[in-house]
């Protein structure tokens, strides 16, 4: 088990290194001219030369890469060409915003997945109608779901749920950046409740896809487990269908569902990027969109690195957890 965890960590480090290298190389070979973006189109030759020096572009490439990696270790993601500030400072408020939304969305997708999975396997007309609806929902882009939920809950239901921003009040000065948590820390349930209300629609829009996918995997896993030879054995020993489901099928279906959830959670972070646009959520996504708009590649690279690392680490964690849970992985 320990050996497995260590090996998985080793692989994780390799992947993270190549991820960093890939992002760095893309910055070097890309079309955008970082200096021009930095100083503006009309800057003098001296200003350009100065900027080159300031951005470290006169150093050999391997030194630039070493500086880049060294900076990452100190939490320095480089300098934004657009805001001319340290990207890590820019992200200080954006990262908690996105993470808060992500946690909420993951939680909601688990709830959706588990609830839907029991509906999914229903036989007959109702079942196939439900499956059709789920399938359609899973095929819809998350921004469509986001837009429709804004139209329904904000516009047509006259503001039943807030559809823009994170809070009606603005942040606490000494807050953690996680608004729901901040409210609790300051003893203001109103504040937390308001933040939660703001979370509902964007989290819902981001969680429909993963939730449906989870439901399908759970349902498929349970269905195939219920048809398996060991389920037949359990029945021949007198177990009822309910017991076979609880004692055997759920256990066997949970591992693939868990690993799917990891993949989905990683992908959801990128779906959030899109959803944030619709809900004017000042998180990584909005920052990314701005950076893309002005060709600010260092900022784009930084966000890709953060999201990428999140995805890779999460997957490694789940692999280790699965190995700990599933005797087949652990003992064979």
């Amino acid at each position: 088990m320990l050996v497995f965890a260590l090996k998985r960590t080793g692989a994780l480090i390799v992947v993270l290194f190549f991820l960093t290298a890939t992002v760095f190389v893309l910055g070097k070979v890309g079309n955008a001219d970082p200096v021009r973006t930095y100083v503006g189109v009309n800057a003098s030759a001296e200003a350009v030369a100065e900027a080159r020096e300031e951005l470290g572009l006169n150093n050999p490439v391997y030194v630039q890469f070493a500086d880049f990696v060294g900076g990452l270790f100190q939490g320095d993601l480089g300098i934004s060409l657009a805001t001319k500030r340290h990207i890590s400072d820019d992200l200080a408020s954006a990262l908690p915003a996105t993470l808060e939304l992500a946690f909420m969305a993951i939680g909601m997708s688990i709830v959706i997945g588990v609830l839907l999975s029991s509906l999914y396997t229903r036989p007959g007309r109702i079942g196939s109608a439900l499956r059709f609806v789920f399938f359609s929902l899973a095929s819809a882009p998350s921004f469509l779901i986001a837009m429709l939920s804004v139209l329904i809950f904000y516009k047509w239901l006259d503001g039943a749920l807030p559809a823009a921003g994170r809070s009606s009040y603005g942040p606490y000065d000494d807050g953690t950046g996680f608004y729901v948590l901040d409210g609790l820390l300051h003893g203001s349930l109103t504040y937390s409740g308001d933040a939660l209300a703001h979370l509902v629609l964007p989290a819902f829009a981001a969680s429909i896809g993963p939730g449906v996918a989870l439901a399908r995997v759970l349902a498929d896993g349970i269905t195939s487990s219920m048809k398996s030879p060991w389920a037949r054995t359990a029945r021949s020993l007198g177990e009822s269908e309910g017991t076979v489901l609880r004692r055997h099928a759920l256990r066997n279906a949970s591992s693939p569902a868990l690993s799917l959830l990891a993949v989905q959670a990683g992908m959801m972070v990128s779906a959030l990027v899109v959803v944030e646009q619709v809900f004017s959520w000042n998180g990584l996504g909005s920052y990314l969109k701005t950076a893309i708009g002005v060709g600010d590649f260092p900022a784009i690279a930084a966000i890709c690195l953060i999201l990428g690392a999140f995805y890779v680490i999460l997957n490694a964690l789940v692999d280790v957890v699965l190995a700990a849970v599933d005797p087949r992985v652990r003992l064979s």
Partner: protein
Amino acid sequence: MLFSRKRALARAEAGAVGTLRDGFWDALGKAEKASLIGVGVVIVVSLLGPVVWPYSAIIPSGEQLLPPLSGGHILGTDTLGMDMMARLLSGMQRSLMAAVVVTTIAAIFGSFIGVMAGFRGGAVDTVLMRVTDLFLAFPATIIAMAVAAALGQSIWSAMAGITVVWWPLYARLVRGEVRRVVALPHVQAAKVSGVTGWRLLVKHVTPAVTPTIAVTASLDIGAVIMTLAGLSFIGLGTPAPAPELGRMASDGMKYFLNAWWISVLPSLAIGLLSFLFNYAGDALRVGLRRKGV
């Protein structure tokens, strides 16, 4: 769901398929037939629509922000007074063609790598699969984003970005299939008969693998359409006035509460495309499996 590469892989692996044969159509249910017909209709409409439709997709042709069913514009006009229907038709055509190109290139390149690795085995296999696994370990959409961003704002960059992260799926899938097929008794029997090298690969191995590749690719088109739209939505596509569905949707967000149609309609178009292709892809797989091939 916006990004669905992993799901595409899982689906492809879950449904290893056989060959297409006569009677495939009969094995399909009503809904499955309908979805295949739907895909046919969408392809025809998006190819012919822009030619037939009287309005241009990139030249203003009426008042600005006309709501649907007004002023002679069935789906209204956008902020510049361009006809929404014309833009949607062109946008669907663009999405479709881009997705087909991306899927084809990724499938061909990935399959080539997969066949090499699976058939040759040994060091070739190890090296190719290490590289493939590295790519697979990367978060696909984020790398696609980074690649597209580095190449600049255009649909070509987005396509390049997606191709870069999509081929490893085929490499993995095909390599696994080739290794499975090579271990099958009929390939071993052919080897014993004295058949080796290219003839063994072409005559006894690849016919078992190509249907899987073809079905996987057709299953993937929906996912690629959605990923392209996602990239386009966050600004990694050709800027307006190019009729690109994802960008149209996100550009329209500024006027969302007053003119919902300029964002919602392109999103619906993407949803329709991805839904039809996903559903038809599933139908294809179900049909093949029900045929028992």
